[in-house]
C-alpha cells in the first residue's frame, strides 16, 4: 500500500467510526420518542394520550358498568387549590361523560400551569379517550382566579373485561419558564 492509499483508508475508517459514535449517542436520544410510542401502545406507566381522540363514533355497552375515579395532585410548590368536582362516576363503556376539575390560583401573581394526566391501571390507559380536556394546553390564571376546567371522556368498549375500576389522575405542575416570559 502506498502512503496515500493508507491515508485514504484511515480517513474512511475515521469517518465510519465517527458515524458509529454519533449513531450510538443518537440512539440514546432516540430512545425518548421510541419509549413514548412504546408507552402509549402498552400503557406502560399509565401514560395516556394528551391529544384529542379522533374517532368519536362507536357502540355503547350499556350492560357493563365501570367505575371511574378522579384524582388531583399538586407537584412540589404548585400554589393552586385543585380538586375534581366529584370523586367517582359509574360509566357505561362507549358513552361520553362530562366532568370538571376546579383550580384556583392562590397567589397574587399570574400563574401558568400544566396538568399531566395519568391512568391506572396502565392497561386501561389506551382505552381512555378524551375529546375535551384542560390538559391539552397550558392554563393561564390571573391572580386569585379560580375556575372550573372541563373534561369530556369515554372509556371504549374494548376495555379488558377484568378491569372494573379506572382512575384518572391529574397532576398540576407550575411552569416556571412561562412566568419569565410575561
Amino acid at each position: 500500500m502506498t502512503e496515500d492509499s493508507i491515508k485514504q483508508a484511515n480517513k474512511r475508517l475515521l469517518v465510519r467510526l465517527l458515524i458509529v459514535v454519533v449513531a450510538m449517542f443518537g440512539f440514546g436520544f432516540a430512545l425518548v420518542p421510541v419509549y413514548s410510542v412504546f408507552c402509549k401502545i402498552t400503557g406502560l406507566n399509565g401514560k395516556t394520550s394528551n391529544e384529542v381522540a379522533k374517532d368519536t363514533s362507536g357502540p355503547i355497552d350499556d350492560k357493563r358498568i365501570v367505575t371511574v375515579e378522579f384524582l388531583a395532585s399538586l407537584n412540589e410548590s404548585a400554589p393552586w387549590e385543585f380538586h375534581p368536582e366529584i370523586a367517582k362516576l359509574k360509566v357505561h363503556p362507549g358513552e361520553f361523560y362530562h366532568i370538571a376539575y376546579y383550580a384556583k390560583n392562590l397567589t397574587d401573581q399570574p400563574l401558568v400551569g400544566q396538568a399531566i394526566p395519568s391512568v391506572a391501571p396502565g392497561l386501561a390507559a389506551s382505552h381512555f379517550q378524551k375529546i375535551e380536556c384542560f390538559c391539552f394546553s397550558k392554563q393561564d390564571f390571573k391572580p386569585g382566579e379560580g375556575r372550573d376546567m372541563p373534561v369530556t371522556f369515554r372509556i371504549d368498549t374494548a376495555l379488558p373485561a377484568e378491569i372494573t375500576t379506572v382512575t384518572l389522575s391529574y397532576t398540576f405542575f407550575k411552569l416556571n419558564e412561562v412566568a419569565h416570559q410575561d
Partner: protein
Amino acid sequence: MLVNFLARLRGVAIIGGLLFWSMCACADYKLNMPVGVTDTSRDVYDLHMLTFWVCVWIGVVVFGVMFYSMYHHRKSKGAVAAQFHESTTVEIIWTIVPMLILIGMAIPATRTLIAMEDTSKPDLTIKVTGYQWKWGYEYLGEGVQFFSSLSTPREQITDDSVKKDEHYLLEVDNPLVVPINKKIRILTTAADVIHSWWVPDLGWKKDAIPGFVNDSWTLIKEPGIYRGQCAELCGKDHGFMPIVVEAKTQEDYDKWLASKKAKATQVAAADAVDREWTKDELMAKGKEVYGTICTACHQANGEGMPGTFPPLVAGKEFSAAETMLTPLREDGFLSDDNKIIMGSVENHAKIVLHGVPGSAMQAYAEQLSDAEIAAVITYERNSWGNNTGDVVQPSTIKAAR
C-alpha cells in the same frame, strides 16, 4: 460412595443450618421474610422459600462435588490429573436440567404475579402521596385526607444518651387506618421525587412517581399495626419517613372515619372564627409545627445547612449557589454580603404559603391551616435570638392566601 458422602453432607448441612437458625432465633436477630397478613404476602413468602430451598439444594450438590474433588483430587494425596476436557452429553444435560427447574419455579411465580396485578372490584380506594419526607393519605370519596410523618423525637436520633422507643423510626403521628377483610386499592403517586411505599407484611412495594399513578391492592385479614418504610432513595431524610398501617375491624374503622370527618369540620369551623391569638399560644403552637415540618431541613436550632438549606437566624451567613441566593435576596431575606436578615411578614408568609420554586422549600398553603402558619411564622421570628416581637395572626395569613 459419592452418594453416601452426599447424603452425609446433606445431613450435616441440615443440622448445621438448623442449629444456626435456632441460635439466631434466640437472640434478637430477625432472619427471614415476614409471612405477613395477606394472601399475597403468604404466596410471596411461599415462593421465596421455594426458590430458597431450590438454591440450597443446588448449592449442596454443586459445592458437595467441588469439596469432594478438592479433598480427594489433590496432588499431595498423589492424585494424577486425568486429561478429559469435553463431553457434549453432560453439557446438554446441565443445560436442560436447570431449564426444567426454572420452568418449575416460573409457574407459581406467574400465578402469584397475575393475582397481584388484579386490582379489580375494590371496596375502597386510598391515594398515597410521597413527599420529601412524609406520606400523604387521601380516602377517595370520603373527604378525609391527612399527612403522616415520623413521630420519633429528634433527640432519640441524634443523642445516644436518650433511650430509644420500641418502635424507633417506625412510628408516625397519623397512621393509615384501614378496615380488615376489605379489598383496598392503593394508588401511589408523589409530589416531588420518586418514593416507594412498602409495608413488608402486605407483601409488596410500589414506587410513587411524580406525575403518574400506580395501582396495587391489599386485603388484610388480621387487625393489627403493620410498619414499613420508604424504599426508594428520596433525599436527605429518606430513612426517616416510615409508614404505619393500622388494620381495624369494620366497626372500629367506621368509628375512626367518622371521628376523622368530624375533626375536619371542627378544624374548618375553628379556622372560620377569626379570633385573636395570644403570643404565647402562637409560640407554643409554632414550636410544635416547626418541630414536625421545618426541623428536617432548617434544623432544630434554625441554623439550616450550608449550601442547601438557609438558616432562619438573622445575622447568620448563608453561602450557596447563586440560583438559591437570588430569590432570598429578592424577598428581602438576605443582605448583599450574604447574611440572613429578617424580611417583612408579608414575604415570610408568601414563602411559607407558596414555597420557593426551584428549591426544596415546598408550598404549605394546602398542608397547614391559617393558624398553624401564623404560629410557625411567629415562632421563627421570635426564636434563636430573632427578636422582632412580631405577632402574626391567623387572619393575616387568611388575607395573604
